[in-house]
């Protein structure tokens, strides 16, 4: 155990600082920038629909979602009419690209060229994250493993040991010492704001944006992921519509207008 109150001193070559801390930091920043531009170059825009039927299949679903969100602008009659129409169209598969294929299992995304392309896009994105990280980590492991390079100017509790001293297996070392491998991890997660400063806020070096992009369905105008059965999505949407309750924003609007504006007019 480290003795309480006694300052641990480790004699370090000051060159260690210049030859490890700076290189790691600079390399991390440069790879981040490189990754940003590589992602931009390799990013293929989502493919637009190539036929009218395909476009109808995609947008038919979005139409239902729009209706569900904005139905409050309609009066009761027009609401019911549209609701019934959409539900029956969804049930009959009226918007499907080829209605003959209903009920069959969806095409294997591996054999479908369009699905293949979408999968490739996702894979490229993941690869752009993983390959540089693996490379740099093995580089650091090969050259700098086991170095203690920094001493933090403030004390920390023992819990931080695993965070700050990975790669250095000494139980008695004070937590304030930072190992080279840990410096890499700190950079990996702590450079977001630096990238934001250099590349702008929506840069591709940012992990978070990468993860969010996978979840945003509106991004490609294509609500269907590869391998997903549009018919199933339609049935779901039909159910959502069936349980909808209608309210109309136009109810009582005359009184509302008179109250909100008329009162001001009356002085």
């Amino acid at each position: 155990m480290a003795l309480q109150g006694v300052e641990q001193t480790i004699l370090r070559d000051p060159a260690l600082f210049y030859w490890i801390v700076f290189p790691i930091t600079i390399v991390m920043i440069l790879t981040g920038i490189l990754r940003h531009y590589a992602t931009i170059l390799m990013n293929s825009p989502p493919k637009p629909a190539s036929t009218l039927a395909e476009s109808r299949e995609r947008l038919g679903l979005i139409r239902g979602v729009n209706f569900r969100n904005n139905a409050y602008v309609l009066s009761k009659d027009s609401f019911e009419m549209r609701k019934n129409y959409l539900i029956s169209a969804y049930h009959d598969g009226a918007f499907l690209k080829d209605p003959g294929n209903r009920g069959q299992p969806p095409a294997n995304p591996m054999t479908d060229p369009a699905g293949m392309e979408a999968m490739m896009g996702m894979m490229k994105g993941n690869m752009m994250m993983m390959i540089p990280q693996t490379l740099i980590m093995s580089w650091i492991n090969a050259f700098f493993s086991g170095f203690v390079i920094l001493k933090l100017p403030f004390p920390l509790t023992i819990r931080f040991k695993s965070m700050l001293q990975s790669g250095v297996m000494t139980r008695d070392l004070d937590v304030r010492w930072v190992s080279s491998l840990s410096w890499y991890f700190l950079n990996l997660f702590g450079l977001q704001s630096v990238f934001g400063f250099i590349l702008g806020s929506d840069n591709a070096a940012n992990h978070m944006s990468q993860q969010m992009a996978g979840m945003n369905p509106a991004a490609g105008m294509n609500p269907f992921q590869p391998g997903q059965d549009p018919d199933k999505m339609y049935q779901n949407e039909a159910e959502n519509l069936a349980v909808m309750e209608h309210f109309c924003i136009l109810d009582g609007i005359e009184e509302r207008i008179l109250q909100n504006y008329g009162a001001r007019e009356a002085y």
Partner: protein
Amino acid sequence: MAYDNPELQYEHSSNMITISRLSQQAPKILERYSLLGEDTSVVSILNLENAENFDVLEQLAFSCLQSGDDRSALVCIDRLAKRFGSSNDKVAALQGLHEEATAEDRPALEGCLHKYDTILSENPINLPILKRRIALLRSLSRPVEATTALVALLDAAPTDAETWCELADIYQTQGMGPQAIFSLEEALLIVPNAWNVHCRLGEVLYSCADSSDVGNACHLLRRSIQYFCRAIELCGDYLRGLYGLLMATSLLLKIRTGHQEDSLVTASLMTHDTLKNLNLFARKRLEEIVSRRSSDHHLWEHGQAELIATKELLSRFDSSSK
């Protein structure tokens, strides 16, 4: 309301004065953006290649075409074509628009139509060209074909509010009120907060009410009033909405006083007081806007036609109430 920044003016406006003023600035803007599309490598390094700059060029092309400055428009379009390639959907549509604008006679326009058909046979889902084709069909006064093409387009792309509005417009010019109402409602489902679409729907309902029997008219007028109210709720000083509200409430009041014993008419859910108050409110509001805008030169200039119409309406009401 003085515009210091010329970019701010680039709202798409249907006002002729605004448009001609914008297009007069074409040389200045073209010079400023002369780097764009010249040498892409330098531009991208200097980070000048913002999407906004190209938006400005596109808008400028539109206003130049509208004001008859075809040469500047061509320069804009050429620059866009140099950057995005002339096979790009939007650029192709702009080029088509320019050709239509400079076409001298009917056969030339038919030629444009053929060109669009060839482009569409290669790529059937080229939206800008599809829209251009429909607009061209309309200007060739073939509304039936235009309607069929619009319906086919909407079948494939039902989430485009612009197309629904266009369809509504065609239907209304053909005198098919209920269809126009349906189309506008669809447009509203896509852009639920657009006060101009609300107002337009109110107008269509009003004109339908004008030409139907009394019981039906009351129902339609009530809906029309509701949509006008909603437009005003969304945009407080919306002149067109207030104008419509005044017209619709006056008409409904007139019908009601004429048919007081008819239960169909009086059972339209709105009390007489509310109606009167709304009428009064719209009128007061309009008077206020007219007096405010007439004194301010800038405001006066931009909505001249609307203001004149409003003034006339108000004076007509004044003379009838005396």
